[in-house]
C-alpha cells in the first residue's frame, strides 16, 4: 500500500534534507512529525498574511485567493516537505509584519533585522551579497581590469587618471552590489522555472501564465490607488529584497518571501477579472487564470513523476548509501569508508543507522585508482573515487568491471540524475572487500 502511494507521489518519498536532520532529534527522529510542524508554521504565516491583507483590503476574495495561490504553488509544498527553518522564518516574519503593521518605519527595520539575524543564525553559509560587502572582490576586479587592458598590444589610449576615476574599488563595489540586486528582478526564475533557459536547479515558484496576471494586477493597483495596500506591497517587496540578499541558498529559497506580495498582486488581477464588464479582458483574464491552475496541476504531476529533476539529489545519495550499508552485517568489517564529497555525512549516518562507531566509520573522500582497497572494509562513494576522476566528468562506461577488478563484491549502485560531485561521475557505488 505504502509503495503504491509513494509511486504516485514520489516527491513524498524525498529523503530528509540536512536542515531537517539538524533538528530531527527533537521530534523523536520522525520526519513526518517535523514535516507536519513545518506545515503548521507555513499555515500560520498564511494566517497572518490573510489577516493583514483582509485588514487593508476588506475584501475576502482577494485575501483568500492570495493565500490560495501560495498554498498550491510547488514551492510551498517543498518548503514544508524539506525546509523547516524556512517555514519558521516565514511564520515569524509574517507574524512580525502583522503585529507591526501600524508602525511603518519600525516594521521595515524590525523585520529586516530579524531576516538578517536569522540568516546568520541558521547557517554558516553566507550569501554573495555579504561576500561583496568586504571590498575584496572589488579590489580583485580592479586588478583584473588593469591586467586585462595592459595585456593589449595596441590599446585605445586613455589617460591613467581618467581610468582611475572609475577603476577603483569604491566604484567597482557599487557595480558588485548592484549586480547582487539585479537578480532580484529575475522573471525567468520567478515565472518560467518550468522551461528555464539556464536549466538551473530550482522549484517552480509561479507558473508562467501567472506573469500575465501579475501585469494585470500591477495595472489595477497603479490605476486605482489604494495607499494602504500599496504601502503593504512596497514594504513586503522591500523585505523580500532583504531576504533575497542575505539568503545564501538555492534561488527558490531566496525568493520565498516574495511569494506573498506577488500572490497579492495576482489575486487583485483575478478579482478584477471576476468583476470586470470588459468582455475581452474578462475572457482572456479568465482563460489565463484557468491556464495558471492547469499549470500548477501540471507541475505537481511533474514534481511527483521526477522529483530527482527538481530537488537536490544529495539526500537521495545519502539515503542510498546508508540503506545499502545497513543491509550488511557491520560486525564483519573493520572499516566503513563513506565519502564526504557532498557535505556533512555524520548526521545522515546517525539518522539511517542509529549510531556510527567512530573507530569504524571514516567520513572522507577516498582515492582507489592507484591503490588496493583495505580488506574487511566497506566503501561508499562516487565511481570516480573507485577508478579515478575525470576533469570533464567523463567516466569510463565500463566502470562496473573496473570496480569489480579491484576486488569489490556485493556491489550496489545507483545513477543520480544530477552531477553533485563533479569530476567523480554521477554513479554511486557501495561495495565491500572481504
Amino acid at each position, binding site marked *: 500500500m505504502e509503495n503504491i502511494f509513494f509511486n504516485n507521489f514520489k516527491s513524498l518519498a524525498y529523503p530528509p534534507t540536512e536542515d531537517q536532520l539538524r533538528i530531527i532529534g527533537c521530534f523523536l527522529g520522525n520526519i513526518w512529525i517535523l514535516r507536519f510542524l513545518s506545515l503548521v508554521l507555513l499555515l500560520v504565516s498564511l494566517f497572518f498574511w490573510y489577516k493583514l491583507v483582509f485588514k487593508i483590503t476588506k475584501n475576502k476574495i482577494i485575501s483568500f485567493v492570495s493565500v490560495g495561490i501560495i498554498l498550491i504553488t510547488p514551492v510551498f509544498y517543498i518548503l514544508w516537505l524539506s525546509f523547516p527553518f524556512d517555514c519558521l522564518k516565514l511564520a515569524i516574519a509574517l507574524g512580525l509584519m502583522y503585529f507591526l503593521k501600524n508602525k511603518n518605519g519600525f516594521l521595515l527595520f524590525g523585520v529586516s533585522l530579524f531576516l538578517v539575524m536569522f540568516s546568520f543564525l541558521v547557517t554558516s553559509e553566507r550569501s554573495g551579497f555579504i561576500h561583496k560587502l568586504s571590498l575584496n572582490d572589488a579590489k580583485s576586479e580592479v586588478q583584473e581590469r588593469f591586467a586585462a587592458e595592459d595585456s593589449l598590444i595596441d590599446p585605445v589610449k586613455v589617460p591613467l587618471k581618467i581610468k582611475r576615476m572609475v577603476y577603483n574599488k569604491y566604484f567597482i563595489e557599487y557595480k558588485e552590489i548592484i549586480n547582487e540586486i539585479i537578480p532580484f528582478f529575475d522573471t525567468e526564475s520567478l*515565472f518560467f522555472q518550468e522551461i528555464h533557459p539556464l536549466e538551473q536547479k530550482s522549484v517552480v515558484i509561479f507558473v508562467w501564465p501567472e506573469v500575465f496576471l501579475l501585469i494585470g494586477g500591477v495595472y489595477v493597483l497603479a490605476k486605482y490607488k489604494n495607499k494602504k495596500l500599496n504601502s503593504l506591497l512596497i514594504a513586503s517587496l522591500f523585505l523580500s529584497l532583504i531576504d533575497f540578499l542575505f539568503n545564501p541558498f538555492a534561488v527558490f529559497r531566496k525568493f520565498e518571501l516574495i511569494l506573498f506580495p506577488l500572490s497579492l498582486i495576482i489575486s487583485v488581477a483575478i478579482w478584477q477579472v471576476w468583476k470586470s464588464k470588459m468582455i475581452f479582458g474578462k475572457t482572456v483574464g479568465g482563460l489565463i487564470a484557468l491556464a495558471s491552475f492547469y499549470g500548477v496541476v501540471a507541475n505537481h504531476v511533474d514534481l511527483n513523476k521526477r522529483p530527482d529533476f527538481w530537488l537536490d539529489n544529495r539526500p537521495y545519495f545519502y539515503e542510498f548509501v546508508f540503506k545499502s550499508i545497513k543491509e550488511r552485517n557491520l560486525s564483519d568489517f573493520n572499516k566503513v569508508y563513506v565519502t564526504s564529497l557532498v557535505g556533512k555525512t555524520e548526521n545522515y549516518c546517525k539518522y539511517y543507522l542509529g549510531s556510527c562507531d567512530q573507530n569504524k566509520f571514516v567520513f572522507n573522500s577516498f582515492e582507489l585508482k592507484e591503490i588496493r582497497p583495505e580488506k574487511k572494509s566497506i566503501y561508499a562513494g562516487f565511481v570516480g573515487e573507485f577508478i579515478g576522476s575525470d576533469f570533464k566528468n567523463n567516466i569510463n562506461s565500463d566502470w562496473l568491471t573496473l570496480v569489480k577488478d579491484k576486488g569489490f563484491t556485493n556491489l550496489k549502485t545507483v545513477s543520480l540524475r544530477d552531477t553533485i560531485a563533479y569530476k567523480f561521475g554521477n554513479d554511486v557505488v557501495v561495495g565491500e572487500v572481504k
Partner: protein
Amino acid sequence: MSRKIEKIIVGGIIVLSFLVKIYGLAKSPPSVNFDEAALGYNAYSILKTGKDEYGNFLPLSLRSFNDYKPALYAYLSIPFIAVMGLNETSTRMVSAVAGTISMVFLYFFLKELVKNKNLRLLIFGILAFEPWRMHFSRVSLEANLSACFFVIGSWFLYKNRNLIKQKKNIFKAILAPIFFSLAAYSYHGARAAVPALIILFIFDPLRFFFVKSFKEYKKWFLKFKVKYLWLLVFFILLIMPVFLANKSSQVLTRFRQENVFYRYFPFTPKELLVGEKSVWLNLTNNPIYYFLGIMSGHMLSYFSPINLGGRVYAWVKGGVQYIPGFSMLGWAETIIFVFGLVSLIKNIKVNFKNRYIVYWMLASAAPAALTWNWFHPLRSMNLYPAVELIVALGMIKIAKILGKFLAKKKIGNIANLGIASFFVLSVLFVVLNEYNYSAAITHGEYQPGGFKEGVKILAQMQDKYDTVIIDSPHAQSYIFFLFYQSMDPKIVQACADKRPAPGVEGNLNFDFYKYKFAKYDWPQQKNKSKILIWASSEVIEKEIKDTPGANLIWISNAVREKATAIISKE
C-alpha cells in the same frame, strides 16, 4: 531654458557621443570579425567592380558565407571605403553613424514623454551612452543599421499618424514605410518586425481589453484605423524586390536553421509524455501548455530586467553581442527600468504612447522569439530604443519621488549634483569598458587574432613565392586574407564557380590566387621550394630552423599570445 540652448546641448551630446564612438575604432575591437570582414570586402568589391565577391551585379543580398546577408550596409560603406581605404575604421563607420543618427530620433521620442527640459536633457545624456549603444555602434552590424532605420520609421509612424490616416501630406505619410523598408533591406529581423509593428499599430489590440463589447471595438476600428492598412501594403511592395531577387528559400536560410518549432518539439519534457502516438493528447502535461510557455517566455525575456541588465547567456558569451561587464543597459538603468515598466503599465489605457512602446517591443522581439534562443540581443536590436523609453519613464517617476523628498529636505541642488556626477562616472565606466576591457576579453574565436597582424606581412612576402599554404581552423578564414590585403575582387570573382554551392554550410574556404587551404605538414612541405605557409597548428620551431632555406615569423594576436606562424621556404 530657451529652445536654442536646448538644441545646443542636445547637439553637443550627439557630437560627443559620435566622437566617443569613433575614437580608436581601428583598435577596439582589435580586429574585424568574420561578418565585418565580409561586409567590408563585399563593399570594396562592389566599389571596384560593381559586383560582390561571387560576381553578382549590384546584389540586394550578399551570398557571402551562404547566409545571404542584406546588402544595404555594404552599399552605405562604399563612400567611407572609397575615402579611407578598406580597413576597420571605414568598415565600422556606417554603424557608428547609424548609432548616432538614431539618437536624434530617440530625443524626438523623449520630447513626447518628458516635459521638463532639464530632466529630458539629463535622461538623454545618460541614454546616449548606454552599453548597447556604445558596443554595437563600434562594430559593423547590419542589425545596428536596421535599428537606426527602424527607430526613424517608428518615429514617423507615430508622429505622422494623423497625416497617414487623412492622407493630408502624402510625402510625410510615406516616410514611415520608406524607412521601415530600409530597415528591412538592412537586416532580416526587420522583415518580420515591421509588419508586426504596423499590424499592432493598426489593430491596437491592447485597446481591446478596455472595450465593453466587440461591437464597440469594431466601430472604433472601422472609424479610425482601417485607413492605415495601405501602410502595410506599401511596405510589402517596397521590400518585394528582396524576395524576387533571391529564392525565398535562400533568404529564409537562417530561419530554417534557428527556428523554435524544430528545436523544442515536443515541448513537454519527454519523461512526462504518456503514450507515443499523439503527444498532443497528453492531459496533464500537454505540449500546448509548454509551447505557449516557451513563446511567452521568449517574448517576455526582452522585458526581463535581469536579461537587460546582467545575465549573460551561453550563446551570447564569446560572440559579437557580448558586452563584458554588462548586458544591454547600465546597472542603475536596469533597476530604473522596473519603475518604468510600472509607469508604462499604469497609463496603458489612456496613453497611446505607452501602448505604442509595448507594440514596438513586441514587434521587435517577435522575430527573435521565433528562434530557439531565449534572449538574443542581436536579433532583437530594434527594441532597445523602446527599452530606453521605458527607462526614461522610470526616471520621470523617480525624479518625481526624489523631487518631493528633496524639496522637503532642502538639499535639492546638492542631490542633483550628486546624481549628475554619479551618472557621469557611470558613462565614463561604460566608455572605458568598451574601449579596452571589452577588447581584451572578447578577442578570440569570433574575431580571431593573427590575421590583422599577419596578413599584411604575408602580402609583402607572397610575390616571391609560387604557393601560399593556409592552415586555419576557421571555416571562413579566407575572408580575412581578402580583407586585410584588399585583394583584387576580380581574382576572387574568377573563382566563384569553384566555391561551395549555395546552401552548403561548414568549411567555405576555397583556393584562390596563390592560396591553397591545406593542413600544415612540415615533414612533407619542407621538401618543396618557393612555398609560404600560414600555420595555425602547432609549429615546432627547431624543425624549421634545422631546415636549410626555411624561415619562421611568429605572429601574435591582440594580447601578445602567439596566434600563427608564417613559414617561408626558398
